[in-house]
């Protein structure tokens, strides 16, 4: 009797746990056909990979996430790795992976790199922009904490610097064109390469509330 009760109790606990932290969807952990598992580059937790420049996906607004996959499919956003993966993703795969990553905590921000002058320059641009050149601050649209404004403006705080640099450069050169109303192209093409580097380095060092700064 006692052991039966315990068994039922334990079974209930396991079920509760699996409901609370729903198992990641198969598209994230196993992939499907040509769509290799999201987690193989972005991690199950969506932390990405700083060295490889795979972006943080944690807490991306689902609508923004889904738009990016749709844009890879449509060719308005192109990447040799992501484009074929996106092509192989079904509507259900997109919905499931978007929901999964939206629910992950942002990873801890990177330690500040050595050169404080570069960080200071990036911080100045992120907070105050350069309005004399019509460059609005990053935080005017991505929120004062850089954690984004759903649905259209993704979190940029805590993003890997290599990824931020690659995207700003892609907007600047015209390789990426899927920003709404050319909002990012407008900003990126006014930034120098040094400024892009500085702002990306700064953004990588700030993250979830209470970390970085």
């Amino acid at each position: 009797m006692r052991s039966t009760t315990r068994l039922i109790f334990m079974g209930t606990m396991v079920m509760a746990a699996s409901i609370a932290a729903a198992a990641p969807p198969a598209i994230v952990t196993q992939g499907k056909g040509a769509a290799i598992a999201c987690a193989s580059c972005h991690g199950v937790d969506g932390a990405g990979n700083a060295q490889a420049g795979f972006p943080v996906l944690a807490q991306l607004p689902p609508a923004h996430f889904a738009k990016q996959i749709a844009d890879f499919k449509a060719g308005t956003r192109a990447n040799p790795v992501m484009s074929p993966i996106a092509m192989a993703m079904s509507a259900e795969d997109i919905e499931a992976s978007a929901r999964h990553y939206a629910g992950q905590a942002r990873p801890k921000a990177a330690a500040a790199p050595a050169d404080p002058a570069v960080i200071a320059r990036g911080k100045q641009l992120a907070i105050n922009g350069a309005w004399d050149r019509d460059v609005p601050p990053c935080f005017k649209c991505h929120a004062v904490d850089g954690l984004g404004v759903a649905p259209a403006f993704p979190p940029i705080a805590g993003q890997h610097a290599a990824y931020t640099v690659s995207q700003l450069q892609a907007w600047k050169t015209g390789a990426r064109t899927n920003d709404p109303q050319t909002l990012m192209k407008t900003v990126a093409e006014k930034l120098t390469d040094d400024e892009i580097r500085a702002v990306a380095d700064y953004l990588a060092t700030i993250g979830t509330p209470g970390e970085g700064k």
Partner: protein
Amino acid sequence: MNQSIGYLLCVLALGGMVSGCDKPPPPAATVAAPAATAPAPVAVAPARFAPPAESDIPENEFGEAVLLGKNIFVNTQQYAKDFVGNGMNCANCHLDNGRKADSAPLWAAYVLYPAYRQKTGQIDTIQSRIQGCFLYSMNGKPPALDSKEMTALVTYHYWLAKGAPTGVKMPGQGYLKVAKPAQKPDVARGRAVYENNCAICHGANGEGIQARGEYAFPPLWGNDSFNWGAGMHRVDTAAGFIQANMPYGLGGTLSDQEAWDVALFMNSHERPQDPRFSGSLAQTRDQHHEENCLYGRTPEELAAALEKQAKTATAAEKTKPAAEQLEGISPAISH
């Protein structure tokens, strides 16, 4: 009693160069009197003024007041919450923390006060002018003239205006005047402009967008927006702000027509009552809202009035020199 308090608030609290939609002055009664007594035109400075860099704020008691003023200006919701009755921050309409030209920069405003203002019918100081912002644009309760908040805000204005010539209307002051468009402004066209350019930040219904409990993008109409006494409720003022500054980084891309259309669309919605409301919409309209706004009139009525005004003005403007800024008179004389 309430009425007299309302009147007192109105007189004390002003609105301003950019706030309000009062009747224009009676046809040149005071300013165009005998030539000998007419005030001299104010000189216009040639080059664009550059306020000091934020990194130059001194590290002393004065600098602390400058910094507090800046913080109030940028995050009014937090630093002056007792005086704010909506979801706005000063920096929503004065971009770059009050520095940006053609976005009613503080350095240009500071040096034009004290000045007589049609809106209040009195000489306003920079302090009483700022009180007007709180009453109308912030739909709140103005901080007292000697309050910590007011002192900090004035100190911030003063610091930004370092080296600016007193009494001179500088290039970039106020908001741009957008030429009257070819077609009369239209709400339906304005809605399309809004959906294509503005909704991504201000929401499908002008409600703004919040992130983590704060407005990341301000509401353009509704209870949390500026009230019917604020300068931005005027269609011409809003068109000037929008064309020069919106969307962020894309200032100057909307045509005159688009700016007027979208300003009309924005201001065709409901917003908090004008604090000068007398109990009668028609009376308040006739007393304070002669033109360029939708207070107590339909978009069609306003569009028709603007069209008529444009037709009669074209002929007159050709023979008349451009309006000059007169010493001691707010440049926003018709607001």
